[in-house]
């Protein structure tokens, strides 16, 4: 955490419908995180985010209001900001449906609510720097959807396949390795790990891979 902390502070908006969780998270976040706004519903969130244009939005997946679309709906209404404002999804459920929906709507990463304030702060810095944040759980979902090494004929787009390296990185993250540990394990730099993860995220967001759709349909996500 100290390596990237070059006296830069981050403007953060907290979106969660539970006031208790918001205040707990505020107390937990590192000192370089400045909470510039809070919201508890979809409408409030969209208003606060468009007004404040923060660096990072910590976005709960389940939110009341709007058209019952939760965090993904907030993302869809803030697409014009996606270049400058990064979204990090928070969820208590860890369900494939929640996670994949917000990621495909444009979130740069996903963490479980039960992780520590320090880990969340770290994730915020990472996301603000343009990287993706994968929890082991999310890596597991990606492997489930893209994995299976089904290198059969129908894969024509580059988007539809993870490279071997990307699969390796995902597998290590799923095994509980931090980015740094992944880098050591594969004899590559942390920067390279980050770029692999970002590329996986891009594929996850853009791919219309047949299997991803089927996987999602199987799990009643789409």
């Amino acid at each position, binding site marked *: 955490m100290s390596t990237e902390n070059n006296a830069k502070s981050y403007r953060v908006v907290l979106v969660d419908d539970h006031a208790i969780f918001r205040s707990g998270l505020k107390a937990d976040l590192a000192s370089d995180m400045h909470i510039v706004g809070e919201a508890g519903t979809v409408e409030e969130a969209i208003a606060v985010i468009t007004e404040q244009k923060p660096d990072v939005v910590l976005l709960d997946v389940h939110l009341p209001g709007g058209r019952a679309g939760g965090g993904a709906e907030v993302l869809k209404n803030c697409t014009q900001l996606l270049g400058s404002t990064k979204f990090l999804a928070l969820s208590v*459920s*860890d*369900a*494939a*449906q929640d996670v994949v929906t917000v990621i495909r709507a444009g979130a740069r990463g996903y963490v479980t609510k*039960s992780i520590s304030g320090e880990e969340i702060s770290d994730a915020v810095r990472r996301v603000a720097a343009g990287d993706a944040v994968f929890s*082991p*759980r999310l*890596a*597991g979902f990606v*492997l*489930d959807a893209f*994995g*299976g*090494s089904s290198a059969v004929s129908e894969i024509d787009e580059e988007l539809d396949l993870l490279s071997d390296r990307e699969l390796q990185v995902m*597998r290590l993250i*799923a*095994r*509980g*390795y931090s980015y740094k*540990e992944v880098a050591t394990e594969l004899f590559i730099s942390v920067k390279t790990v980050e770029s692999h993860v970002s590329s996986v995220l891009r594929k996850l967001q853009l791919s219309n891979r047949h299997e991803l759709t089927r996987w999602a349909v199987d799990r009643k996500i789409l």
Partner: protein
Amino acid sequence: MESPERSLLVRSEHRMIAGVSGGLAAHLGIPLNYVRLGFIALSALGGIGILLYAWLWVFVPSAEEAQADEIRSWGTRTRSLAEEMNRVQQGFFRSREGWEKNSSWREMLIGCGLLLLAVLALAQWAGWNIRWDLIWPSLGIIAGVLVAWLQLDAQVIKPGAKKSAPLLIRLGLGLVLVIGGLLAILSGSVGVADLLGGMWAALAIIVGAVVVLLPWGTRLWRDFLAERSSRQAAAQRAEFAAHLHDSVLQTLAVIQKRSEDPAAVRTLARIQERELRQWLYGNQDLDDEDVAVEVQREASDIEQLLLKDVEVIAVGNAQGFDGQQALVAATREAMMNAAKHAPGKISVYLECSEQLVEVFIRDRGTGFELADIPEDRHGVRESIIGRMQRAGGKAEIRSSETGTEIQLSMPRTTTQEETHS
């Protein structure tokens, strides 16, 4: 004489025809044979008994239906062993015994019928004038009604499911028998030409009635469907409430009581979280014997035992391969070691590919050297490495001062392999 424990009026499972008599006997508290005699006596009075029997057959639910209703309202709340045993006993054993008693009764009934026919034949031979032209069609009608109506007790047809062919055949057979019987009886007193004309008239009347009553009928059917689905929703709500009560509320109560013990509170919350998550979002479509489910189960077991966080990520699923038992046991041992010796969270990653099932158990302890473990300690050497090798798999241990990772892999070889993607 309204006794409080009077049993519900349901058709009994001890049935000779449809279980009406048995149900009535149980409901009224009268010996079964009296009820049967009563029906027979009433039937002799111009067939009132038959009509009454038929009426009850259609409108009184069978014991199975009532039981299904009860099970639905019973919900999924966790039951004590005693309750469970009680239910099982009531359910299985009684109906089984009833079935055996039943079949002998049924044989007797058939025997009586044959005897009656024989007596009638004998009477005719002796010179009595028996109206066979009435008896045969009547028998046909009765048989047709029985054939068609017995399916009332066949399994309830699910909406959307296709009606099974035997059901339709039985319905058709019953219809032909009854109509044929009626026509045969009538043909004795009415001429054939008149009969045909009458048939056309009857057909016209039926068509007219159907046209008039169709909207009403469909509305009734739709109402029925709506009512049923709302009842299902209510049952589901009740199930949710029961589950939340038994799990979350109970845990919250315990947490309040033990609020001065942070470790216990944390563990309780964690266990409850896992349980609730499994219930809400779990892989309901995976079998209990699936390796992913088994590893998950072992992990939560260890969490409860040693108060450690164990996060299990599973990709793919597999079951029924040869070394599954050994793999799960070795995984448990590895998780147990990690939980005992290392601080912090334990990450477990399970991946099932076509040829291989791999498990990685990673902790953040200070590491150890296999050579440093005394010879007499069997944990790692026997329970993990030895066990995996005997089952045809492999175990590797990578340990450094930042943590230990145990890697298990087991080939997915089986004679008959079951997978569902």
